[in-house]
């Protein structure tokens, strides 16, 4: 049976249809979830897509984290459910406290929109279980606030627990330790700034995103 993937839509989300398309192509059954609904409809996994939820007012993710759907998503995550935050979704997950650290304005203050090379640091996460360690992936980024930062103590913890799952081979935005993606200690919640859903078709220039999204579908399957 194909996996039910809930893609959350906030006012200002703009990558939800890309995520729907990519997950359908990969054989999953994605469906949209509205941020104001408390019920996430018994999905097997949740994706928070990119965009500018609530206009990024105050801080990216600061208002979205209080949406009714987030309460259900936090419970779902605490019960081991796979949750993926892409770009703005990553920002929402850090604001919600599901992932440590924060995302700041890019060093150099440039909005970055380009393909970058990522290195898989660990396959032990819901986003990388079908990749191999050291694998390089070409995936686009599209952000202004993707500069991951955290305290020294948090960084040490991320490093010693192997929670840094993807790094940039050439740091585009000033992220500490070249971090492009992290997971939580339980490894079921992941956040990344690059957009794997935009690298799932040869026509888009890269199909490397498929490895990550297939891993996530696999993670959703394991959760059932």
């Amino acid at each position, binding site marked *: 049976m194909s996996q039910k993937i809930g893609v959350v839509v906030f006012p200002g989300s703009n990558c939800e249809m890309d995520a729907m398309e990519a997950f359908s192509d990969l054989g999953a059954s994605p469906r949209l979830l509205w941020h104001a609904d408390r019920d996430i409809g018994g999905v097997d996994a949740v994706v928070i897509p990119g965009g500018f939820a609530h206009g990024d007012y105050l*801080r990216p993710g*600061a208002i979205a984290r209080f949406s009714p759907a987030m309460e259900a998503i936090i419970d779902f995550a605490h019960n081991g459910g796979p949750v993926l935050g892409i770009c703005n979704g990553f920002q929402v997950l850090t604001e919600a406290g599901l992932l440590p650290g*924060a995302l*700041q*304005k890019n*060093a*150099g203050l440039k909005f970055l929109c380009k393909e970058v090379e990522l290195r898989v640091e660990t396959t032990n996460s819901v986003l990388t279980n079908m990749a191999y360690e050291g694998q390089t992936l070409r995936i686009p980024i599209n952000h202004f606030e993707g500069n991951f930062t955290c305290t020294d103590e948090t960084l040490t913890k991320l490093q010693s627990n192997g929670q840094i799952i993807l790094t940039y081979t050439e740091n585009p935005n000033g992220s500490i330790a070249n971090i492009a993606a992290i997971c939580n200690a339980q490894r079921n919640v992941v956040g990344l700034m690059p957009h794997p859903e935009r690298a799932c078709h040869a026509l888009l220039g890269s199909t490397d995103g498929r490895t990550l999204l297939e891993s996530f579908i696999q993670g959703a399957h394991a959760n059932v």
Partner: protein
Amino acid sequence: MVYDACVEVKLREGIADPQGSTIEKATANLGFAGITNVRVGKSIRFQIEADNDEEASKIVNELCDRFLTNPVIEEAVIEIQVVG
């Protein structure tokens, strides 16, 4: 009582400030010598009803912790004054 509150949200010490460093470079380019340690924050002003100073301060502090700042990278400087 009604209070005027002003919350200055600023980056914690040690957190890099890309806006601050860009502005700092620009000041030198414009010929303003000796400007250092530029840091950019934001101020949020609002009014709040509370029974007394202590209650007003407690509410604004909680609002800052939960919502107006991201404690991972930011801190707040709070000023509260009775209106009038």
